[in-house]
């Protein structure tokens, strides 16, 4: 019964000291939502090394432009126009092509278009706050938006989130599934934020801070921020011409 060949790819284990801890009491919501028993580990099977694929045909022409995709014809969202671009790669530095990225964020005043958000900053009638794209063959991606504002939240008595964009990433395997947040270089709220501080290692926090990229910025149009995303790597590459037996 043990005569089949080994699994095609095994992902490097997650470094769970690098990721935020489940129980991080400075972020109060985590206290009752953190498992207390140890996670059970086992070797990757096809259940973990496979994952859904989403084609480029899923993506509409405005899906990656949050300044326009909810705006009335001829209108645009209000705020600081920015392009976010970067590369999705794995821990070995290999590009991760043709994977779906989804984004969501508050508007320029820090208000989300969500019925649970009752912050007094107004909604922007031309801004929805969601977008998506699929990485190219070289793993690169880009989207246009307005820079989100910081907003207060009921954690400590005077806690404010830094400006941030939520990013959801599919890799090529369910084991690579990741949601994170992108912050903006130089924001003084970053080191004060209890959610940022669920991460212990300053180098890990630094990976979530997008850099202003003046060379890529379009004069008289928009500033560009550079944000690269790293997904788990695997010991052998599944998509080279050795699908079996590697």
């Amino acid at each position, binding site marked *: 019964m043990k005569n089949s060949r080994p699994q095609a*790819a095994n992902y490097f284990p997650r*470094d769970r000291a690098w990721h*935020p801890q489940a129980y991080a009491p400075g972020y109060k919501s985590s206290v*009752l*939502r953190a*498992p207390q028993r140890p996670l059970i580990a086992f070797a990757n099977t096809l259940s973990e090394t496979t994952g859904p694929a989403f084609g480029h045909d899923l993506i509409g022409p405005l899906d990656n432009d949050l300044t326009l995709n909810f705006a009335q014809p001829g209108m645009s969202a209000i705020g600081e126009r920015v392009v976010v671009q970067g590369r999705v790669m794995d821990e070995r530095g290999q590009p991760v092509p043709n994977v779906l990225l989804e984004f969501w964020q508050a508007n320029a005043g820090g208000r989300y278009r969500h019925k649970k958000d009752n912050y007094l900053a107004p909604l922007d009638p031309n801004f929805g706050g969601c977008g998506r794209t699929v990485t190219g063959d070289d793993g690169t991606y880009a989207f246009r938006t307005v820079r989100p504002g910081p907003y207060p939240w009921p954690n400590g008595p005077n806690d404010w989130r830094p400006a941030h964009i939520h990013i959801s990433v599919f890799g090529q395997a369910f084991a690579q599934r990741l949601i994170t947040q992108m912050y903006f270089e130089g924001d003084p709220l970053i080191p004060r934020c209890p959610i940022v501080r669920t991460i212990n290692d300053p180098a890990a926090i630094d990976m979530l801070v997008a850099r202003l990229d003046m060379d890529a910025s379009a004069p008289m149009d928009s500033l560009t921020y550079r944000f690269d995303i790293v997904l788990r790597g695997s010991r052998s590459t599944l998509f080279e011409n050795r699908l079996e037996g590697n």
Partner: protein
Amino acid sequence: MTNVTPGPLYPFKESPSQTAGPYVHIGLTPNFCGIEGVYDQDLGIAMVNDKTSGEHITVEGRVFDGAGTPLKDVLVEIWQADADGLYNSPAEPRGTADPAFTGWGRCAADQTTGHFRFETIKPGRVPFTDGRLQAPHINIWIVARGINLGLNTRIYFEDEADANAADPVFERFEHKDRVATLLAKGGNGKYSHDIHLQGPQETVFFDI
């Protein structure tokens, strides 16, 4: 003599996770939260159609916090094999899965009751690393406000007792009573499965 590259096996660290937050629906299920006209429909709401092979089932449940309160802002994704045990993925090396089955679903919990619900099929069996068959299971990934790194667990089925008894993953459990936390209850196409993040009924979560 071969060149040996100095330094770590893999030079880059994974991007650290952050919570999906309470407004995850804006990005992942915008139509569900009233942001209409951006996407035709939310991704992952339809896994099956009339042509999908296998036993059509519904799986419904809730996710509870350590105080026994259901999470009303949780988002659940599932990933599973088709009726023949094949994944609808470019990384599936064994053959082509049922084209009428996506294998992947996404559901935002009901914002009043906290229920999630999937219309899917009973998955076939998938081999473990040594070739033995795993019991039928659905892989789940859970994100929400207060969850800093998405939680991985599985749904097995209580009416698959023989397969469950031989499941290689369950062999890893030191405390066998915890197997029960992964068994969906029911049969005849209707299953319920609650997930407890913390406490005496705590669901098994995996480091996959």
